[in-house]
């Protein structure tokens, strides 16, 4: 009994790896700085849809940009903008991001990969959350001789999943297979293209979306989601696709598209710009 407990504690320490160490050191430093007074501290925010946080010692303010402000079970990408607490972006900092599950006392084996994009922007790939529940992202920033930490909380990380209506009936005879369509309320014109030519069953592949507004002007800054459905069977795609803004020409890249059943599929593209939402559904016949 006692030994079992020892083993479990040890295992968690092992999985915790450096994360446990980080916690100790940052705690110690916090005490040290507490006696120093606070200067002008403010949170800088570039995006409406972002999470912000001051680091523990008020050295930096961090802005985290993720779709819908939520992380989900699986592999996530987040963007972090590092600002000085006194304002101004922080380039060339060293960022360490550690996913942590406080209730279980463990992290994950995969290390997030941080890439500096310039202007204080860092993208963090490979943020693996292996289960649902309460997760934290511990972000450590080191710049010159300064180091500080902040912890972002995600109390309810969920598994991905959408409701899929089941029609259990063959597709209507006159299905429209157009690859360019207006959205339901005519706000946008959307075109999709499978990169690499004809869609092949069972192959993970990417799409390119082109979104223009009703006047034909490219829409470059939309929140876009893509959901696939097989109405006859009541299920969706076997993947969670990810959408990236190209930032010009109304272009968006959709990675992780996959169809594993032949037949009638419906792919719905939802678009949100400045609070205006509209969507369009494309029919596909996968061979």
């Amino acid at each position, binding site marked *: 009994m006692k*030994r*079992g407990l*020892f*083993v*479990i504690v*040890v*295992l968690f*320490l*092992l999985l915790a790896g450096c994360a446990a160490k980080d916690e100790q050191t940052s705690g110690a430093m916090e005490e040290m700085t507490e006696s120093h007074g606070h200067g002008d501290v403010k949170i800088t925010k570039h995006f409406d849809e972002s999470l912000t946080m001051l680091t523990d010692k008020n050295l930096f303010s961090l802005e985290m940009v993720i779709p819908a402000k939520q992380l*989900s*079970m*699986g*592999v996530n990408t987040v963007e972090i903008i590092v600002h000085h607490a006194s304002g101004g972006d922080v380039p060339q900092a060293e960022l360490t991001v550690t996913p942590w599950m406080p209730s279980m006392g463990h992290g*994950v*084996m*995969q*290390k997030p*990969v941080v890439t500096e994009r310039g202007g204080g922007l860092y993208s963090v*790939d*490979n943020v*693996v*959350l*292996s*289960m649902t529940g309460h997760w934290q992202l511990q972000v450590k920033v080191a710049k010159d001789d300064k180091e500080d930490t902040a912890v972002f909380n995600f109390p309810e990380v969920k*598994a*991905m*999943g*959408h409701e899929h209506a*089941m029609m*259990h009936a063959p597709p209507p005879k006159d299905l429209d297979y157009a690859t360019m369509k207006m959205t339901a309320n005519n706000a946008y014109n959307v075109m999709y293209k499978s990169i690499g030519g004809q869609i092949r*069953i*069972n192959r*993970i592949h990417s799409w390119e979306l082109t979104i223009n507004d009703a006047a034909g002007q490219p829409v470059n800054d939309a929140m876009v989601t893509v959901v696939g459905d097989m109405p*006859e*069977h*009541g*299920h*969706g*795609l*076997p*993947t*969670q*696709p*990810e959408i990236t803004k190209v930032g010009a020409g109304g272009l968006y890249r959709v*990675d*992780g598209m*996959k169809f*594993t*059943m*032949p*037949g009638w599929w419906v792919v719905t593209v939802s678009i949100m710009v400045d609070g205006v939402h509209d969507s369009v559904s494309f029919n596909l016949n996968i*061979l």
Partner: protein
Amino acid sequence: MLNFLMRASGAAAATVLLFILFSIVWPGPALSMDQHTWSEQEKAVLRSLSIEALGSLPVDPSNRYSDNPQAAAFGKKLFFEDHFSGNMKVSCATCHRVDYSFTDNLPLSHGMDTTPRRSMPLIGVAYNSWFFWDGRSDSLWSQALGPIENKLEHGISRTMSAYIISKYYRKDYEELFGPLPDFMEENFPQNARPALDDPDALKAWVLMTPEQREVVNRIYVNMGKSIAAFVRTILPQPSAFDRYVEQIHAGETIPSRMVLTNEEVAGLRLFIGKAKCTNCHNGPLFTNSDFHNIGLPQKENVAPDKGRAAAITQVLSNEFNCLGQYSDAHPNDCPELRFIDTSNKKYAGAFKTPTLRNVAERPPYMHAGQFATLREVLEFYRSQAQNPELSHGNLTDKELDQLEAFLHALSSPIASFQAEVQ
């Protein structure tokens, strides 16, 4: 005379016209004269199922040794090595028999003890995205590391594997991967691994230094990558079905020359048509490598097998996955893991669609050997007609015969890597 001729040809034309009309309205029975006639769309489906569509082996970016013949030769030796087991009697080949389409003939496999699932055929396995019935591995090399440390299968540890390699395979290993340290009890415990099911081994593992653990993990991973390089080479060869597709595309129609019997062809027509088997058993290996709950009977007196739903966390947290430090891939080369569908509700009780190549040669069937014969499998599918993914009207007894006949036409000899021993 002229008049007569004209009338005759008029009658002939009318007959032809009538025939054409008739054949448009009435599709004809499955076993009509032109049962070797397929529509363009059907021909495309046949081609997509044929071995011709298989293409070259997919690259495994997570394993830089995957196409290295020397690694495959080494991996082949390891595959058949009995020393890698708690009782010196179990090798990969115990449950993946060369003479049995690389699986075994048991409802539940037996290594050191009985496993909760049936073994799987390894034919063309490298074309899959996920491995095991529940897909809890995302590469063949990380898959190979599972059974070694599984108490019911090989039942040894990664440190013991390193000992065995250093004792029996030092030369093979060092030629590929560089120098091996000496394994002696003073430097390395014999039985150490990070798992909760063996507290002593776990304790021993934890007490090793991080550097020692790294050394052992490297050797273990290299071993997995070598085994994977061999397992990749296990491939189907053309079956009667594939030769038939070739005939159809060459325009052959003379019934006496066709490779498949009428009954087999009727089964093929059902397979891609009314019976909807290609919803899941599609592509040249007759699998979409995806997970489905097809409503199999649950075993009594055991907790239900959650299948894929339980495996999602496992594959995400596996230290040997494509995104981990032992993978040779760039994170962008791990699309399956990056875009993994984590909706565990959808995958409750779901298992990977198995290949149907050589299916007739290797009973029993399903993830826990639920059925002893193909007939039982087909009877089961018939009983599931209300499942929208399986719906197929009602299959008659005769149609089950035809489907069964067709499944027999998917058998072929198996190719695999021949180590060149000098």
